[in-house]
């Protein structure tokens, strides 16, 4: 994974009484989420990647060395091709919205500019208030401007520090679709700090789980969410994500077909065009297991699967399944597990009674 398409972070240091020792490697594609409880060092890592903070170690992003203490290399933040979205919008109050957007844009040599102001403004829905003062915008609008401003610096790596955390519920709901849209349309690798499982499930491609100043695990999101050690902490809230493609719409029953590696989900009809990639979330408690393919059932989404791993937790069991290469989680009672003889390697059918479409 090392090389021009990866992000390699090795940092150690102390901030006050807080010791950080973080080491991970993540692909420089899509959205890499840094997750963990607050105060675990997520933001510190992000600030180090930006160069706003300096700890010991090394940073290599897409083949470029940004920091290597062994060789005495440390690029100052303004020399790193990044965009940074802070928790608070932090717009420059002395500049108009347009002035804010142009701030980074103007400082990028024209040969390196990859986005046009008008396009980004359209993408984030801020074209309507380019000439307004930041003070006159709502919280959600301001954060959209801040995101657009960061994008216009033509970053090779976008850094987002809980960009939704300071917003109210309505503003969050307003912005999430924009973020998903960005992920789908712009190919900018992003490090995304969050402690919201919801945001992560919707946006992330890769997860870096951080706890108390060190990296606990790092991997693709589908794998990470279904890792038993991590899923167990979630209990009944454990979930899996499934990346699927829209393959057809059924006009008669008003359903949409979404194909993934283990079969095809049928969901209530959506407006997505055929071929569009979508993400589904399946809660462990919404999945049940049968030994045979049930026919006399109202459940539409039934797939053959193989039991991968079982973890018992009191009266409950969390079962990880391999559904044609896609991991899913099912939450069942220990009694059911014993009755069905659930153990690794056992072929079963998984019935999914509810599925949420992320976008």
């Amino acid at each position: 994974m090392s090389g021009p398409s990866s992000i390699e972070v090795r940092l150690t240091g102390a901030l006050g009484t807080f010791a950080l020792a973080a080491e991970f490697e993540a692909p420089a594609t899509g959205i890499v989420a840094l997750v963990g409880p607050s105060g675990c060092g997520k933001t510190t890592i992000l600030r180090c990647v930006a160069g706003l903070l300096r700890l010991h170690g090394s940073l290599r992003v897409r083949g470029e060395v940004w920091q290597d203490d062994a060789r005495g290399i440390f690029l100052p933040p303004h020399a790193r091709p990044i965009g940074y979205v802070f928790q608070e919008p932090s717009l420059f109050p002395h500049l108009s919205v347009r002035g804010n957007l142009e701030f980074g844009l103007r400082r990028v040599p024209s040969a390196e500019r990859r986005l046009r102001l008008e396009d980004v403004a359209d993408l984030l829905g801020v074209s309507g208030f380019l000439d307004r003062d930041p003070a006159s915008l709502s919280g959600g609008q301001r954060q959209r401007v801040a995101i657009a401003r960061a994008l216009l610096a033509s970053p090779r790596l976008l850094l987002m520090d809980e960009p939704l955390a300071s917003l109210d519920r309505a503003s969050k709901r307003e912005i999430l679709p924009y973020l998903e849209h960005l992920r789908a349309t712009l190919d900018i690798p992003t490090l995304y700090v969050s402690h919201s499982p919801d945001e992560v499930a919707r946006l992330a491609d890769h997860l870096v789980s951080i706890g108390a100043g060190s990296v606990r695990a790092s991997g693709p999101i589908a794998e990470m969410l279904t890792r038993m050690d991590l899923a167990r902490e979630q209990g009944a809230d454990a979930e899996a994500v499934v990346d699927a493609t829209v393959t057809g719409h059924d006009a008669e029953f008003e359903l949409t077909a979404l194909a993934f590696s283990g079969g095809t989900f049928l969901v209530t009809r959506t407006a997505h065009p055929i071929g569009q990639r979508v993400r589904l979330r399946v809660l462990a408690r919404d999945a049940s297991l049968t030994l045979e393919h049930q026919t006399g059932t109202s459940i539409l989404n039934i797939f053959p699967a193989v039991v991968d791993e079982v973890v018992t937790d009191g009266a409950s069991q969390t079962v990880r399944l391999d559904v044609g290469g896609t991991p899913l989680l099912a939450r069942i009672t220990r009694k059911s597990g014993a009755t069905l003889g659930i153990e690794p390697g056992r072929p079963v059918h998984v019935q999914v009674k509810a599925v949420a479409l992320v976008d």
Partner: protein
Amino acid sequence: MDDGAELWAAVRLTVELAVVTTLVLLVIGTPIAWWLARSRAAWKEAVAAVVALPLVLPPTVLGFYALILLGPDGPGGWVAGLFGGRSLAFTFEGLVIGSVLYSLPFVVQPIRNAFESFGPRPLEVAATLRAGPRDAFWSVAVPLARPGFVTGAVLGFAHTVGEFGVVLMIGGGIPGETKVLSVAIYDYVETLQWTKAHMLAGGMLVFAFAVILGMLVLEKRLARRLR
């Protein structure tokens, strides 16, 4: 020189002195204020205290030290020597130096406060948008600190106009060169020429009122814009 001409010369000289002093104060005071606002050096408050000393020292004391500083025993005499003089006292340049020393805290303090008021975030944002430190200073820090610059400039200007003790000490009261308005008023009062003294003092009062009022209005407007 008749009275009217001398009076007019004092007014003109005062305004010139205040303008030049204010410009010099902004040039010198801004980097000091910036350093005081941003440095984490443990001894920076000691520097801040030195800058604030003129607030505490009686003008006559400050004037006496300025006299030594400007004279043949101090650096001022050395500089004057380059131009064939023996001292910077009794010159316009000397008055500017004395006024700058005396008014420095009035300019540094508001600018420092303004630099501190917006915290490190805007500068971090600027850095992540490819602005180097110098660029960020001019494009972000200075515009954001504008109310502080206005306050500092106005206070520096007004304080120089009203300054008396130091100017008295190092000026020598040379008409048209170092005899500023406040010294002229003093002379009129001392010699019981109340009418002229009233005229000048009244003019200064009106001027000071206008300046302070203007400052308050402008400051409020800028602050609203930067909120």
